[in-house]
């Protein structure tokens, strides 16, 4: 049976639009914040080229937002399954500790270091996924285990030391640049492209959304719900490990106590700002990246406005409240009721 190619095209166009419609809110929030800075923060948009590389506040935001963005991408898949991964910060620390230890102590080859760090993240993700999908422990509790224990594991790996390294190849991950932009930006873009392809060109995306929306119905439809959930946590673990590598490379040290500290909270916030609901179901990878950029821009703005770090959490909290309000069915219902003609 032949399909009408026009109908097909318009169908695809609609789907694209429907996806884009969800990006309006995070994009709008980011635009508002940038507009604020354009008006009140001198030099915010100043960008210059030095040694074939871009420098400026915006570039810093992209650079430092990349780590959060990568963690948020993995978190998106987990949240789509109506789960959450609190251990990503600890996994960053473990992966960083493994990488630094392999470089310094074992003088391992660079590919081995990369593989070691990412495999660490994979193992951590599989552990979380196993607890959640097989043992059916609530995601918050299951990932809390590694969140709490993870930094201790990282300490064990580094023997309780902060391992510093000046290895040029490791330093290149955060310090290098490609097409004028810092390498972490490229890595985040690559992670986005890879995950977007993997979820939308296979049926993984459909399965994640189905499991997150109604796990029982998905199981009854013959779906391997446990496998899907396991995969989501595994991806989140690998993403966290990649972010951990960038972190080690950036500060040139593995700090078990502070690497990725509280990143899980920012990542969850980024995902939620990006339009993916904590109740699971539909997810938006691009939205999560926009959410991460928004958070990074907010942080940077407060820094440049000399807001002390001690009170910087307050504006962030206000943003969280606003986002939660927008997602609350009660508030949405009231807004819809007001819009509806009497």
């Amino acid at each position, binding site marked *: 049976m032949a*399909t009408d190619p026009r109908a097909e095209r318009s169908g695809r166009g*609609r789907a694209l639009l429907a996806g884009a419609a969800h990006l309006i809110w995070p994009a709008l929030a980011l635009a508002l914040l940038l507009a604020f800075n354009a008006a009140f923060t001198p030099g915010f948009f100043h960008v210059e080229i030095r040694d074939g590389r871009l420098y400026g506040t915006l570039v810093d935001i992209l650079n430092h937002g990349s780590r959060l963005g990568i963690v948020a991408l993995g978190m998106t898949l987990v949240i789509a399954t109506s789960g959450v991964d609190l251990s990503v910060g600890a996994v960053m620390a473990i992966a960083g500790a493994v990488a630094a230890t392999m470089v310094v102590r074992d003088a391992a080859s660079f590919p081995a270091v990369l593989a070691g760090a990412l495999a660490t993240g994979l193992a951590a993700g599989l552990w979380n996924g196993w607890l959640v999908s097989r043992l059916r422990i609530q995601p918050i509790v299951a990932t809390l285990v590694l969140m709490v224990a993870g930094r201790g594991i990282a300490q064990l790996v580094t023997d309780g030391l902060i391992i510093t390294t000046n290895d040029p190849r490791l330093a290149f991950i955060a310090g290098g640049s490609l097409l004028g932009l810092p390498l972490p930006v490229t890595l985040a873009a690559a992670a986005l492209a890879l995950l977007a392809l993997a979820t939308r060109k296979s*049926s993984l995306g459909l399965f994640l959304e189905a499991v997150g929306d*109604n796990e*029982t119905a998905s199981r009854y439809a013959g779906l391997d719900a446990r496998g*899907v959930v396991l995969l989501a946590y595994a991806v989140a673990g690998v993403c966290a490990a990649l972010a951990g590598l960038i972190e080690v490379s950036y500060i040139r040290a593995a700090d078990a106590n502070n690497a990725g500290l509280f990143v899980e909270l920012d990542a969850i916030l980024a995902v939620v700002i990006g339009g993916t609901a904590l109740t699971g179901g*539909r997810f938006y990878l691009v939205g999560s990246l926009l959410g991460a950029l928004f958070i990074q821009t907010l942080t940077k703005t407060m820094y440049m406005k000399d807001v002390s770090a001690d009170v910087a959490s307050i504006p962030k909290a206000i943003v969280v409240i606003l986002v939660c309000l927008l997602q609350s069915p009660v508030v949405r219902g009231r807004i819809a009721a007001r819009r509806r003609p009497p």
Partner: protein
Amino acid sequence: MTPAPPDLADGAGRDARLLEARGLSKSFPGVRALDRVDFNVRRGEIHALMGENGAGKSTLIKLLTGVHARDEGSVRLDGEMIRPASPRQAEALGISTVYQEVNLVPHLSIAENIGLGREPTRLGLIRWREVRRRARAALARLELDLDVARELGGCSIAVQQLVAIARALDMRAKLLILDEPTSSLDADETAELFLVMRRLRDAGLGIVFVTHFLDQVYQVADRITVLRDGRLVGEYEAASLSRLELVGRMVGREFSAERAAPDRAKAGAGGQPLLDAQQLSRRGAVDRVDLSVQRGEVVGLAGLLGSGRTEIARLLFGIDRATHGGIAIEGRPVRIRSPRDAVRHGLAFTPENRKADGIVPHLSVRENIVLALQARQGIWRRISRARQEQLARRFIDVLRIRTPSPSTPVASLSGGNQQKVLLARWLATDPKLLILDEPTRGIDIGARAEIERLIDELRGEGRGVLLISSELEELVRACGRLVVLRDRRKVAELVGADVSENAVMEAIARHGD
């Protein structure tokens, strides 16, 4: 203040009426759950409250126990008008309830559970010795001898049930409501419970007994109230209402000989059965049921609520594991351990609770339709978008699914159309056998007729259908063969011309072995 305990010695001497509810009504959005129902319980009687799904039993109980507020009507307890606003108030008034799922705290001791929330204190400290003494006294009233220091979670369900009753009695109850108390008990445990119930009745308590086991009703109940579709059908002396009459009242069809036999050209193709289950069992759910479905045959599972209909479907589809018995598909023995296995063997299942277990509400009609087929193909062999659209449009067309577009979220469709989406999901996988659990429940007349016609078409295409329905009329219309269940067992198999509502009711009502 605490109400005075019922005068146990002199219960019969006073006015026998304990509870009088008049014209109780309750509506929920879109449903009139209870419509002007009268309900009377006497002192010193066991009163069975009977009705099928949606009859209004649980709504009635929730009104009496203060879980919901009534819309209309009045309730008198001991001659006094009452209007409990919470279960706690109802308990203080003397109405205690023991629910099917024992709602006690498993990690506390028996004594603590009995005393929970009303511990005697001195100077703000709990007097534990007094707590234990009261617990022992409460148990003694039931003539039970249990170690009150034991942790409750370690006791059997039956003991937990009895502790729940003891707790209810410790509240100085006049009316005790037991909601499906026997559904997780075995025969001995049930007998023990009945002993206690009779003892309490003889002591003057009014007991409301909700159950779906007919045999048990006739074992202990003095009187029976039947509800159907939120209305009162009648109040009867148990001794003067035959089982057959009771079943007829519950399902709303009078026993009659004149019903025209419907078209019987619905026998299967014969030969090797598509599905053959032997001695299918699962503890507490299904007891040694034989069942087979031929190609081109609609087999019905008839029986009252809780008779094991849905449980059989769940076993066949791999949602629950059978503890005993075997399943063969097209003559080959198979092991079905998960819905995935079942789908691989060509089975399909639309669950009874469409909203909770069937649809994926926020995904589109198209995504819901392709879900099972895509699940069978696996993650990597994605069905192209074009093919998905084509499948969705075809089934929307064939099944006449009324939806604004294939990309509409399925939650916004009507119940009938959601059911059709579920059928489309399975038809896309070209199944050999469809297990349909209450496919027309909560669906308007028009869509119902369409689904019934569709079932007949599926049969015509040579597929097998196992149909579960609480509507006898529907089963008799659709099925060439009916397996009748009662109390988790198969009690009859009706074929061809023998399929009739009368025969089903007779089979259900016939005395236990």
